[in-house]
């Protein structure tokens, strides 16, 4: 018994240390963002002695942060909404019918490949295509690209969620007089709702967090998103530490809140469904 107890104490101690390592950088950023300019340079203090919101004010007054936030919200909402509808409609037949020529498998594999491809491989072709359509530096251009990328993710995730719903349920609804589409809307979608919500949240996180696509395809606050806005604060000559920290806090906050709400669905979403 004594040995058991000593082991438990050691386990909790180890976990506490690891949690501290995982969370300290967050605290240091919040801490820096709440300090006055002089205090930031005045040496190490673990909390702001005279906290201020100056850095946040500066962000919105002089660094276009309202624009970045607006662009991010528009681009994320529209592209995720579109891709959820498109992706679910495409995932349904993949989960329900056996298409000829092994089309099911190849469609799913393409969907997965698109999602796994490192973004750097897509950026140059996307730049060329958007330049051709004169959609560089527009929110519409970003929306088109994110919709495409998210749709493949939604297809991949939703077909595995839909496949888990027993056929009998919707067949019963169809016997009762529903068409397949009504059965999908009335019976299947409500049952798949948890999966749909998890998929939606992951699409939101991935889109909101994207940097490289937005960085390469936009150039002014008319279309730049929050992560690009954050990076503009690291100037060539000097770094605005306070506003940079504040921008990081704003960039992280929505995602941290999301993460806490949906932690149960995390494994499946982040591992592309490899682990259930």
């Amino acid at each position, binding site marked *: 018994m004594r040995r058991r107890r000593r082991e438990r104490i050691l386990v909790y101690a180890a976990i506490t240390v690891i949690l501290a390592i995982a969370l300290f950088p967050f605290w240091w950023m919040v801490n820096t963002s709440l300090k006055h300019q002089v205090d930031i340079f005045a040496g190490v203090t673990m909390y702001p002695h005279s906290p201020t919101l100056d850095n946040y004010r500066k962000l919105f007054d002089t660094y276009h942060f309202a624009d970045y936030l607006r662009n991010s919200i528009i681009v994320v909402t529209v592209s995720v909404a579109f891709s959820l509808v498109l992706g679910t409609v495409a995932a349904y037949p993949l989960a329900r019918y056996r298409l000829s020529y092994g089309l099911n498998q190849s469609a799913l594999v393409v969907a997965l*490949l698109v999602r796994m491809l*490192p973004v750097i491989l897509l950026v140059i*072709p996307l730049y060329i295509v958007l330049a051709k359509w004169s959609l560089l530096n527009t929110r519409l251009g970003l929306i088109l690209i994110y919709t495409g990328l998210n749709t493949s993710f939604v297809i991949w995730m939703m077909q595995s969620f839909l496949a888990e719903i027993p056929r009998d349920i919707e067949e019963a609804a169809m016997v009762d007089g529903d068409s397949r589409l009504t059965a999908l809307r009335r019976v299947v979608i409500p049952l798949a709702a948890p999966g749909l919500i998890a998929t939606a949240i992951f699409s939101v996180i991935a889109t909101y*967090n994207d940097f490289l696509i937005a960085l390469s395809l936009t150039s002014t606050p008319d279309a730049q998103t929050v992560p690009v806005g954050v*990076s503009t604060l690291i100037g060539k000559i000097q770094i605005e530490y306070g506003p940079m920290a504040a921008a*990081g806090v704003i960039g992280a906050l929505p995602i941290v809140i999301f993460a806490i709400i949906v932690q149960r669905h995390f494994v499946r979403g982040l591992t592309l469904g490899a682990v259930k």
Partner: protein
Amino acid sequence: MAAVSLYPLYYGVRASFTRYLYGRDFGWTGLRNYRIVWDDSFYHSAMFTTLKYVVLTVTIETLLGLALALLVARELKFSGMIRVGLILPMTIAPVVVGVMWRLLYDSNVGIVNPLFQALGLQQPDVLAHNRSAFIAVVLVDIWEWTPLLFLIILAGLQSLPEEPLEAARVDGAGRIRVFFDHTLPLLRPTLLVAIVLRTIDAIGTFDQIYVLTKGGPGDATRVISIYAYNTAFLFTQYGYAAAMLVSLMVMVLLLMIVAVRMMRRAAA
């Protein structure tokens, strides 16, 4: 769907055979770009840096993730909160991760220099020197992505069948024996999926390095994605960058085929 996603890729491959400069196509050049890539010493060193980066980060992350999963895979109080705390680093934008660590590493406002000073050591100015800058970006990657390996491995551990492990314990095998003889072999498929997924992602690492060092000092942290980005968007050599990336894509695709096959087998 396939058409929409493959259309840009077709453009990318086509661009790699052209002199595509300043956003304009100056005509077909055949394999010229590829010949330059073959001889480009910057490309070689960027590939080597990427290789070093990927091997180091993925190895350490797998070992730490496994250790962490073994530590947490038991009855714990606050297990939900512990899990959220542990995975928070990988959920936020990599750009923000870069900002956080820039604030820690920085010579003027950071905490690393004062820490070394307090220990009576020389102040390292981490991001200013080749070696320490490379170690610094590797550490950031480990901080950010160990949680992913941890999560996948934890889920794998929790879905292992109890009987063989229990039987081994009843037979009197010690904990370490049970782990190496039974747990690890059973965990192999999960581990492989996790490692391949993480490797593919690590090859494309860009955001944090861009924020922390922009590939510097010199070329110490210039991984392939940074080099390709600079070539295309700073020096506007789109065709040449495309050729560079096509060669990288072939490697990534090979890895992805392995990944997809393993994921299908794991799902079956």
